[in-house]
């Protein structure tokens, strides 16, 4: 049974002061009891006892915890926990130390939480970077293959997978011998590792089902701090097209120089003959001069063709477009080529167009197109053959189509697709005529690039060819009768 023991105000104050002494700042609130006004303290004496009992209960629990922590502080003392000499109670010191310890612990926890958050962010960032690097590697058209010192494939981008025909699995790296069937590349990777050369370049040509592919291959060694080769990085850049273009350029220079030298050789030889007095009469002298003049003109035309193609391709050509009658341009071109055709006993039929329409053209250029087509037809048509040039209107589409048909040697099927390519010559027809392979390319460039039209060809070997082009009609259309 609980009994309430009456106490004087002084007793209460003593207990409160003792509690403060015992608990230090933690029990400082109790000190407030001492300052209670006397009437309140007198009335609430019982309540004060209860409050003290509760406080003492709390105190006992705190003491139990502090006791346990004392063990920790023994260690802490050796760690020079600051001693506050103003504290006269061991328990108070422990409480201060515990408070500091808790503060530090909380601070460390917060710090570690911050660090943990930072690390998380860094991991996310690294993952993104890794994905980005993988995406970059895979977006590279060059094949990239990385192998380690045990010949395992550590990395292969999409281009490498496609080129070598294998699927790269980073979790289960395969051996390079299993991934790559090109022995020469494997041999060079091994050689590169042995030689420890930082970078070495090879030009490798590999047979493929669509024809050989040439790669500019750079093998780089990744070394550790001791100079050991950790990895060999192989980067294969497809240079097949560049090689073809380079070869084409070389062929062009060689071909053009040969073509330029032929008329030059004639000019030089005939001029020397004149100087040496080898022309023994006036007629021979005139013939020699005529040859020199003709060959000089040939040289000029050849140079002009080369320059025109170059100008059209670079967009630098000056185009003078005016509305002209295509029928009249055709008529003039036929007249220009007629004597050449007659020399070979070839007939040119140019049915007079009843109607003609107007086209907006550069007259000189389109004239050159028609002359090129006609002269080609004469070149590749045997004596006694026929050439027919025709033009046809398509009112619905608003175009005019010009065709030049011959009874010549024709073009093999395999050459048809390339016939308008620059410098392309039909090998089977080389024996019939010489040429640079520029004429038809110039036709295509003038019609398509300059005039927005199109060119076409049909041919049957041994029977003849039909070359043609389509031009859009001028907007100022005026249908007239050809007089």
């Amino acid at each position: 049974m609980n009994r309430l023991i009456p106490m004087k105000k002084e007793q209460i104050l003593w207990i409160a002061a003792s509690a403060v002494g015992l608990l230090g700042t933690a029990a400082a609130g109790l000190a407030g009891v001492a300052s209670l006004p006397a009437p309140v303290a007198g009335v609430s004496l019982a309540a004060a006892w209860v409050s003290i009992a509760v406080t003492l209960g709390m105190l006992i629990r705190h003491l139990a915890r502090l006791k346990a922590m004392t063990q920790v502080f023994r260690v802490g003392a050796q760690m020079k926990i600051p001693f506050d000499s103003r504290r006269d109670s061991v328990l108070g010191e422990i409480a201060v130390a515990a408070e500091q310890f808790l503060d530090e612990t909380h601070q460390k926890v917060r710090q570690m939480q911050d660090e943990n958050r930072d690390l998380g962010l860094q991991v996310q960032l690294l993952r993104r970077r890794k994905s980005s690097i993988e995406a970059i590697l895979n977006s590279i058209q060059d094949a990239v293959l990385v192998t380690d010192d045990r010949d395992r494939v550590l990395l292969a981008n999409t281009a490498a997978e496609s080129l070598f025909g294998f699927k790269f699995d980073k979790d289960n790296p395969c051996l390079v011998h299993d991934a790559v069937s090109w022995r020469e590349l494997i041999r060079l990777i091994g050689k590169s590792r042995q030689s420890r050369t930082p970078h070495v370049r090879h030009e490798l040509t590999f047979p493929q089902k669509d024809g050989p592919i040439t790669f500019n291959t750079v093998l780089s060694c990744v070394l550790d701090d001791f100079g050991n080769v950790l990895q060999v990085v192989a980067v294969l850049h497809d240079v097949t097209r560049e090689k073809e273009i380079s070869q084409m350029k070389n062929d062009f220079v060689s071909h053009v120089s040969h073509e330029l030298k032929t008329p030059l050789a004639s000019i030089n030889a005939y001029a020397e003959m004149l100087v040496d007095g080898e022309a023994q009469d006036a007629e021979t002298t005139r013939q020699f001069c005529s040859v020199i003049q003709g060959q000089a003109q040939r040289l000029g035309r050849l140079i002009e063709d080369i320059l025109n193609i170059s100008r059209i391709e670079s967009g630098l050509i000056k185009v003078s477009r005016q509305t002209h009658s295509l029928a009249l341009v055709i008529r003039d071109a036929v007249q220009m080529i007629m004597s050449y055709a007659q020399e070979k006993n070839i007939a040119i039929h140019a049915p007079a167009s009843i109607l003609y329409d107007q086209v907006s053209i550069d007259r000189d250029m389109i004239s050159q197109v028609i002359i090129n087509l006609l002269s080609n037809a004469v070149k590749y048509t045997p004596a006694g053959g026929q050439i027919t040039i025709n033009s046809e209107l398509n009112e619905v589409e608003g175009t005019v189509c010009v065709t030049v048909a011959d009874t010549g040697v024709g073009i093999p099927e395999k050459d048809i697709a390339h016939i308008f390519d620059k410098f392309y010559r039909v090998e089977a027809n080389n024996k019939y005529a010489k040429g640079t392979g520029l004429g038809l390319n110039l036709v295509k460039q003038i019609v398509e690039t300059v005039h927005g039209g199109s060119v076409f060809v049909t041919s049957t070997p041994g029977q003849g060819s039909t070359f043609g082009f389509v031009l859009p009609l001028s907007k100022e259309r005026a249908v007239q009768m050809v007089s």
Partner: protein
Amino acid sequence: MEKKKALVVDDEFHIVQVVAIKLRNNGYQVDTAENGSDAYDMACQTKPDIIVTDYQMPVMTGLKLIEKLRQNPQTAQIPVIMLTARGFEIEDALKEQLHISACLSKPFSPREVLGTIEEILGQQAAV
């Protein structure tokens, strides 16, 4: 004294003509052909003392013509001068193998062609 016979081969009409005129003016009997195949047939028939041929020609190249000439005992000893465009020079080993007497680059000098022919035929006569 019987005229020396020369065969001039080139698919370029004006080149054949200028060499032919130069040689005729200097006492040679000259035949002409426009490709290697025709030239070989003509050489077999006329047995020229010397042949001047272009390298690049349709139907049969100058090199192929010389190969065929060398394979035929009747034409194997005929000296040949080859006219080549720069960039198509014949390698020395091949020149020796096919017994090509001289190579002249285009643009060439008819005077030089005549001089070379006379030198070769003169050496032959001396032997």
